[in-house]
């Protein structure tokens, strides 16, 4: 069983924290997608994706961020990305994600971003 993947969701002060662990590729991205969809269905639009344990992501995983962010921003929420390791960050960077997504090094900064400004960063 090479390249395991796990996604887990928790709530912190009204913010949904989705933690990715392992490899997100075309095989595992649907689990990540389902985790975000579950939050939207529950009306949760303030989302932080904790990537501290993310070891690999392909465009299938990046597509999950892309396809949901407008919907949550329309509802005054956002999807923030935190904790990317340099190796994985590179993939986000070459596709221009830093221009469109708030990416922070640590979780606290990402969470704090929501408490100071409840509305989303405009793309």
């Amino acid at each position, binding site marked *: 069983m*090479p*390249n395991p993947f796990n996604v887990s969701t928790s709530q912190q002060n009204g913010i949904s924290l989705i933690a990715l662990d392992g*490899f997100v*590729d*075309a*095989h595992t991205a649907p689990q990540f*997608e389902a985790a975000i969809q579950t939050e939207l269905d529950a009306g949760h639009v303030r989302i932080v994706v904790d990537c501290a344990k993310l070891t*690999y992501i*392909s*465009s*299938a995983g*990046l*597509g*999950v961020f*892309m*396809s*949901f*962010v*407008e*919907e949550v921003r329309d509802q005054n929420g956002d999807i923030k990305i935190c904790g990317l390791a340099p*190796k994985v960050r*590179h*993939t986000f960077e*070459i*596709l*221009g*994600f830093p*221009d*469109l997504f708030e990416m922070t090094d640590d979780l606290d900064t990402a969470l704090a971003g929501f408490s100071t400004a409840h509305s989303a960063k405009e*793309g």
Partner: protein
Amino acid sequence: MSGIEQTFILHVPSSTENLALIREFVATVGAQAGMTKADVAKLELAVDEACANVIEHAYGHDASKEVIIRANYDGESISFEIVDTGKGFDPTKITQEALEKLVLQRKSGGLGMRLIKTLMDEVQYEIVPGQKNELRMRKRIKKS
């Protein structure tokens, strides 16, 4: 040893389940070719994207079909050929939309070929729909 041409071939059923094995194959061959760790990571991603496209687009998730990855290196460069016998497409007709536009359109796709072209030094498609579609890509080996 690095001067001699080395060839490795992997055939797997056309299922995303096998992308992990494909990446391990690429990582092992890339390391053996003498690529840096950063470049091995780029190869893994490029080949993953190419194979994910074959699995999804060329074969429409039909796991009875086969994806073939041919790796080849010498002292200068490493190349990968991804071969399928699926439906094919015209790569010149694929327009690369800006990320901002994809996001506004709530698209979840459209980044794969861009990644491949960014990560590799040479990328070339040879399409004969239904017969044999081949994506050839090459990366120079930096001395680490």
